[in-house]
């Protein structure tokens, strides 16, 4: 009897001790978490500050922009957006956004299709000269872009494609972006070929395997490719600058520069306002696609 009581109280002590430990650990954990997040938030704000300032300043009037370093406008105004949208050219900014879209949409579509097909070929087929071809593909990755600019320009000018979107579109239709091909090949290598073999046994031809089996499994990677291509093209300044000469064909990136060139006294709030608008599509598209970025569709097809 007394023995059990002793045992009980000992057990009780042990429980209390454990509870004390837990409380202590929890408190320590919470403090370190608060510290961690404080530091991370501070660094995050620091990095984002230029962007925050940009957005704030786009609502300021011209006089205020350089007067105060803060980002909250004293008396917010939309005049930057209104005037900026009109531009100093015969076209509104809407026209330039449309032009950008005209460049991006085909380019993204061509890139996704051509890179998927080329990557599939490299990842899944044996053919003579494959190693050399793949090596030269990778070599173009290492080549600085500038090196190819001049021969490319001469080539496209010979073909009479200057001042059209063709020089911007066509390379992407032939898997011109080695980086994407490389990325997709790596992704494909991580997917076991069994599903494709099953499809072949089911009677699918190579192109059917590509469309019905490989492409769906590649979806997360293809979305990444589309996203990167979208953002890079959106931000591309040099390409359009070299090949486009008439203002009516300018994309947003050139149009922004245009407004700096033409106004004698820079209306900075107009430029900032249009910069904010120019950023918007990339941000929107990125957040919309984020989910697919993370989600891996291929999980679950093969159980190990």
């Amino acid at each position, binding site marked *: 009897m007394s023995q059990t009581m002793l045992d009980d109280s000992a057990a009780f002590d042990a429980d209390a001790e454990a509870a004390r430990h837990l409380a202590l650990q929890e408190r320590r954990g919470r403090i370190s978490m608060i510290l961690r997040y404080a530091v991370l938030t501070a660094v995050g704000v620091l990095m984002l500050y230029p962007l925050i300032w940009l957005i704030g300043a786009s609502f300021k009037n011209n006089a205020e922009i350089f007067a105060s370093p803060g980002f909250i406008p004293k008396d917010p105004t939309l005049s930057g957006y209104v005037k900026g949208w009109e531009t100093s050219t015969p076209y509104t900014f809407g026209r330039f956004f449309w032009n950008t879209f005209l460049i991006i949409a085909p380019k993204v579509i061509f890139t996704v299709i051509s890179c998927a097909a080329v990557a599939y070929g490299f990842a899944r087929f044996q053919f003579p000269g494959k190693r050399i071809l793949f090596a030269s593909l990778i070599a173009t990755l290492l080549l600085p872009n500038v090196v190819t600019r001049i021969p490319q320009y001469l080539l496209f000018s010979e073909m009479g494609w200057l001042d059209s979107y063709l020089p911007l579109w066509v390379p992407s239709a032939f898997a011109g972006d080695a980086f994407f091909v490389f990325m997709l090949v790596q992704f494909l290598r991580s997917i076991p070929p*069994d599903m494709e073999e099953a499809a072949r*046994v089911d009677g*699918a031809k190579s192109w059917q395997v590509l469309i*019905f089996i490989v492409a769906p499994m590649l979806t997360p990677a293809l979305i990444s490719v589309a996203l990167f291509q979208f953002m890079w093209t959106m931000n591309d300044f040099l390409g359009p600058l070299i090949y486009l000469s008439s203002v009516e064909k300018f994309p947003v990136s050139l149009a922004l520069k245009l407004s700096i060139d033409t106004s004698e006294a820079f209306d900075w709030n107009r430029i900032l306002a249009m910069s904010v608008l120019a950023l918007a599509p990339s941000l929107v598209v990125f957040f919309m696609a984020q989910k697919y970025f993370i989600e891996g569709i291929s999980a679950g097809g*093969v*159980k190990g």
Partner: protein
Amino acid sequence: MAQLSIRNLEKIYGGGFKAVHGVDLEVADGEFMVLVGPSGCAKSTTLRMIAGLETISGGHISIGGKVVNNLAPGDRGIAMVFQNYALYPHMKVRKNLSFGLRLAGEKKAEIERRVAEVAEVLEIGPLLDRLPKQLSGGQAQRVALGRALIKKPEVFLFDEPLSNLDAKLRASMRVRITELHRRLKAQGRSSTVVYVTHDQVEAMTMGDRICVMKEGRIMQVADPATLYERPENLFVAGFIGMPEMNLVEAELERGPEGHALRFGDQVLRLGPEQNARIAADAPKAVTLGLRPQHFRLAEPNDPEALAAQVGKVDFLGHEVDAHVTIGGAKFTVVLPVELFREAAQGGTIRLRADENRVHIFDRASGANVSLA
């Protein structure tokens, strides 16, 4: 009619590695043929060449009398079940099943009818609208089986379809596949099967015939009983049977009353049946093979009894696997638990081998010389 015939099949991989060395195999219409062998013996390679997933370096394969060497997998009249199921991850079960039919341009009503039929046979009706990642291993394997079945192929190919399942599920799937095969055969449908496994229980229980392979060569093709009772060589003898057959180096001696095997300080006299089977040109240097199950406890004053020191004993419930030493050679013997307990008091037991089931192999060539 869908007999499968393989003639002098060879496979040389890209790096120059020869994986298959002239394999000849005939699988009759409706036969369940199991390819079995240790890892790396080219079972999968052979199967994949039949399927058309691997190029053929030499020889030819014909299905239903038609050489298929240069046909695409989809045109060979085969269906395949993969080890890791290989279901299309982005398609619901229903679409997985019907993919092949849809590619072939089958009519919608017919597709639905066949999906329903297969779903019923395999009890996957409730799973039709799930994605592969929402299935358990056993369910996924049934769907994979369904995907093969729905095509009504001439030849079914299986590559270790059960090796990702746990032991219980494996046993029930074994039965299911065997029954399915029997049912197809009874319905008069094509049901030729080539089934790859490295599991000899699967091989013995499922196969009408078994093809034992080693390093890209066929060691023996026979029905399970023949394979067990009359292994043609050392490899097959050691590979088939659990626990493994005891293989001990011995001298074959010819005496006036027949043959005897001498190993260590022991002599094993062969029974009359076995004596008759020994080839006339059998060499002196042999390996004797005796299955662990072919020992029994000797009568108390049996002059032929073998004295065995008992080493480690594996208790299996109804019987024991006892590791013993007889005349300096190690043997495994399987004995009933009670008898063994009684007999093994002193650390030694007296055993009697079944003299008519001793196998004798030529030590140099490995061939069984006691099959005549």
